[in-house]
């Protein structure tokens, strides 16, 4: 099923017809559809941004763009939630909804707090539909650098700002390791807290992850890592977007249990990571032997540099 077929059912009917003139090439390059209340509807592509014209198709002029009204925003939320807000309490608390196919709808609105913690969002004012794509073999050029001289996999942290292709790369690394592309096949355990890596639906991964992946879907990373470690005897553990102290503790535990970890985190450079307490702990514990810094300089997934556990540059990218 094409990305358009997957994402259009979640877009208000009045807006769907305006997206119909988009060509397959435009759909191919589309990364985000941003719906902001009373503002022009915009699309972000690999290297540019355009608005949805009120007569259909794309335009560079915001004055000619379709303005999203309240009814359309409500329809979008009903479609995203299947008219079941009660089923999305956890998602609303986190601020995003994962859609079939691994796509994600990010939400902004007014936060409702209970005891200082976000309980839910209301008065939703913005929806960002981020389209996920599987790009097979995208990690092939990077993969050899993730092994040491004895062909043992090194625990690796992929570092980049948002939209630089971390999840796509992580997914392909999982697939390559499970398929044994460079070495013997490894048993891979994936903690897919946001259902973005494997896009599980009804217990079946909708994206190709090879034949040796155990996927723990929707589970918090810290708990999931321990569960997989104890129950599925993985050789490699994979998780996306680590950031909490609990995640760090679980990763150190896994690293000390003889299991390799491949994870990702938000940061623009290794120095930024080192300034954050959670990652400082991880770096101090030498939980990762490789740090790969990514950017969008030459498109998503551009490798800016590969570092060792002491943050010494092993290979410059570009």
């Amino acid at each position, binding site marked *: 099923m094409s990305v358009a077929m997957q994402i259009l059912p979640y877009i208000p*009917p009045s807006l769907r017809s305006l997206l119909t003139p988009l060509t397959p090439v435009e759909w191919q390059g589309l990364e985000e559809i941003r719906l902001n209340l009373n503002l022009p509807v915009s699309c972000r592509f690999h290297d540019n941004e355009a608005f949805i014209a009120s007569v259909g198709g794309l335009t560079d002029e915001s004055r000619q763009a379709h303005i999203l009204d309240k009814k359309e925003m409500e329809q979008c939320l*009903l*479609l995203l939630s*299947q*008219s079941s*807000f*009660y*089923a999305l*309490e956890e998602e609303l608390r986190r601020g995003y909804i994962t859609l079939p196919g691994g796509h994600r709808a990010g939400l902004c609105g007014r936060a409702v707090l209970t005891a200082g913690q976000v309980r839910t969002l209301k008065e939703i004012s913005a929806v960002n539909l981020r389209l996920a794509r599987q790009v097979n073999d995208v990690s092939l050029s990077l993969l050899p650098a993730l092994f040491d001289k004895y062909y043992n996999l090194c625990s690796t942290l992929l570092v980049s700002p948002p939209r630089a292709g971390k999840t796509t790369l992580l997914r392909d690394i999982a697939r390559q390791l499970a398929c044994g592309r460079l070495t013997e096949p490894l048993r891979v355990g994936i903690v897919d807290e946001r259902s973005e890596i494997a896009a599980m639906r009804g217990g079946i991964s909708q994206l190709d992850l090879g034949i040796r992946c155990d996927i723990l879907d929707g589970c918090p990373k810290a708990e999931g890592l321990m569960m997989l470690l104890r129950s599925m005897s993985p050789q490699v553990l994979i998780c996306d977007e680590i950031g909490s102290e609990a995640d760090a503790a679980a990763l150190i535990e896994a690293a000390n249990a003889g299991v390799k970890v491949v994870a990702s985190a938000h940061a623009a450079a290794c120095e930024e990571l080192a300034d954050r307490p959670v990652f400082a702990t991880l770096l101090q514990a030498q939980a990762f032997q490789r740090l790969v810094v990514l950017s969008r300089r030459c498109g998503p997934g551009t490798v800016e540099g590969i570092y060792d556990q002491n943050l010494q540059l092993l290979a410059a990218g570009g």
Partner: protein
Amino acid sequence: MLKVIGAVLIIIASTGIGRLFACKLQQRQICLSQLQQGLLALEREVGFAATPLPQALNQAALAAGHGSVVFTAAADLLVNGEGLSAAEAFTQSIAENQLAISSTDRQILADLSSGLGLSDCDDQLKKIELIRLRLQSAESEAKEQYASWGKIWKNIGWSVGAVLVLMFI
């Protein structure tokens, strides 16, 4: 001979009409009971599994017997992707589908639709339970109605037939 056959036919027809009216009363009672079963299943799906409404309504339909059509039609309207709210889908489904219930019972079901799916789990459960209890009381009323009027309709049926036969003879 023809007179006898005619008399028998009149009595059979009038008895049938009487039974039909009695049966309608009984069907209302059964339908209300089955709708409550459907709402119970809906409560379970929402409360225990936080199942999204389209799937939860389909599960409710499995338990709702003759009332299932309301739940499945609402679920279909929700999944066809036209951006209908659950309230709109449920109201449309009640309006479009024939059920053996009174207009008052329909209004109770219609009350369920307002705000359906648009609040947290606790609120949804309270709302569904309230509607179920109202249907329960409507069912008790239907039961009493059937107990008193069901027999009357059956007896009126054959006795009107008998009177007509006597008049024609």
